[in-house]
């Protein structure tokens, strides 16, 4: 078992003919991911890496029964692409590009809610269920099938955490990248609930960072979970008012500091880890 994506997911790549689309389509296929089709308006009938290209998502679904989409398009085109996929009945959309306008992401989220679709991103490295499917731009090398789930706002932290889990023999069920943008398609609480329903996931490592309120929002959910949650929050020593790389990573006023996030999550029952090497120690203590 896994969450959101597995070997049976039938995946469509929106923007498959662009350079990023082509490059990552090849990588995803090489990993064993079931890529069934792609879209690129006006380029229907072509092929990329042996995958058929369609003009519209509707046509792609008719021909391939795609149920999942990964988007590799410049930010200004993402809103149209995501809502096209949602309306066409795609149940899971992964938005890789960064710099998506906030209003666009809010509109995408609103449509996703109406249609019961899950959206990840923008500015995410994607999602991987090791050994089954790799959607996005994550390197396969850090991952190994196993029993711990991860959910993070950052790609680089996902790699370090997965690498730690892989080398300590826990392995991963699914690793989810929420994305580094200020407004995201999915939030920690939503993904944590999915992991809780997955019998194979014995624990979850959640990596947050300064800025926003998505980490805080997970607290009431963590209280109710059966699955233990280990939490790391980056930016304990970050200066207020300075943006650290991710568009979302800025401490505004007293909101969104790493310390306040850690305190709230700890009170909710999460196990804080300061460094990567503490993660396996905590998991061992929990008999995961």
């Amino acid at each position: 078992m896994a969450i959101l994506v597995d070997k049976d997911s039938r995946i469509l790549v929106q923007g498959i003919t662009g350079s990023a689309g082509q490059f990552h389509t090849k990588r995803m296929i090489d990993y064993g991911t079931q890529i069934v089709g792609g879209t690129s308006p006006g380029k229907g009938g072509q092929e990329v890496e042996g995958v058929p290209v369609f003009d519209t998502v509707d046509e792609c679904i008719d021909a391939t029964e795609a149920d999942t989409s990964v988007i590799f398009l410049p930010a200004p085109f993402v809103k149209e692409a995501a809502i096209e996929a949602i309306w066409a009945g795609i149940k899971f959309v992964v938005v890789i590009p960064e710099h998506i306008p906030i209003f666009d992401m809010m509109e995408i989220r609103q449509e996703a809610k109406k249609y019961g679709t899950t959206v990840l991103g923008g500015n995410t490295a994607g999602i991987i269920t090791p050994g089954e499917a790799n959607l996005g731009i994550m390197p396969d090398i850090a991952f190994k099938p196993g029993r711990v789930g991860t959910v993070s706002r950052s790609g680089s932290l996902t790699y370090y955490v997965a690498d730690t889990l892989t080398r300590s023999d826990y392995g991963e069920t699914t690793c989810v990248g929420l994305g580094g943008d200020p407004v995201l398609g999915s939030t920690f609480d939503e993904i944590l609930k999915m992991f809780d329903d997955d019998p194979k996931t014995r624990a979850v490592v959640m990596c947050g960072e300064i800025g926003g309120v998505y980490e805080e929002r997970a607290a009431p959910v963590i209280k109710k979970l059966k699955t233990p949650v280990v939490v790391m929050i980056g930016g304990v020593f970050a200066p207020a008012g300075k943006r650290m790389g991710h568009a979302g990573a800025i401490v505004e006023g007293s909101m969104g500091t790493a310390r306040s996030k850690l305190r709230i999550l700890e009170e909710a029952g999460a196990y804080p880890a300061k460094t990567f090497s503490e993660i396996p120690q905590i998991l061992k203590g929990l008999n995961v």
Partner: protein
Amino acid sequence: MRLFEFEAKKLFAQKKIPVTQGILASSPEDAAAAVRELGGEGVLKVQILSGGRGKAGGIKKAESPDEAYKIAEELFAAKIKDYEVKQILVDPLLDIAKEYYLGVTIDRANYKIVFIASPSGGVDIEEVARTSPEKIYKEKFDIDEKMYGFEAFGIGKKLGFTGDKLKASVPIILGLYNAFKAYDCKLAEINPLIETTDGKLWAADARISVDDDALFRHKELGEMGIEKRHEEGEMTEREKQAREWGIPYLDLEGDIGMFPGGAGFGIMGNDFIHYFGGKPANFMDSGGGPSPERLARMLILLDENPNVKAIFGARFGGISRCDDFAKGVIQFLREHGLSKPMVVRMTGNMWQEGVRLFEEAKEETPEVFEKIEIHGIETPIEEISKRAVELAKEAE
């Protein structure tokens, strides 16, 4: 991107919001002339990209052109909240009867637009929210929702307006909401909205932050002379240089140069240094698969920073490969040299090859690599952080 008050007022005026039409001054002479034109008195307000100007001494009343000259001279010479003052807006003095607050922003957690109104304006609204939350009124909207006149009317009533003032408040409330949506704002705020003793309403201050990622569809801002800008205080020379090179970079107060991978680990890596008793000199984000040129520029930023005593390097080879990373760093070391000790760890894609390249290069030109320590996957990143802290202490 935050706009200056005078720019935000231009946008508000286009949405039919009554704003105080001040005069922009870029010298004490201008300020004196402006006060003369306004009838001998006015308010001088520094135009900086930060709130809390009043508390920081950036808003001052002048009761004569001479006084305006003197105040302006002081303001132009001072730094207000770390900002140089280049322009002062001279606004007419109003006879204030009452001050209100109006603002629109995004509730990120709930994916809603929030209109916020309060009869306690003119002060820090977060303070009002803390001390008297009953004085804050909020109305939530979906992203595709418009605001109807009757809704604005309802908000006006909540603020305590009646009769003509209630009627006058409706276009202001609608105008603010519409401006927020029209310009892809993250925040649009009138604080204070002033009721004068003669019963008129004026937007006496204006604040707008536009979503940087939506600027591509707001060419009209550029046409109005509103250029894309850095909004977080004055940049240091190094920050300016990094920005020119497209490298996310911040100067911090410590002495360990940070040469990490992506933003997420960049933030966390800085914490690691603190946990082991050190202080980072900077934040930096390499981006995915940095080119040799970008690697060189990142290292130049650290090498030329006199505060940096030692360098912490980490590479997680993802889609980009550690051997390419190693080649880029080796090329830089040979061509440019590095005056500081550096400890680097590589893991992920092709890390063994990366380590091997460094070892070979060291055999060929040992003098270049005297102060460079290379590690692979077997050394945990925590040990690298510790080592960087030690190196910085040794260099003192």
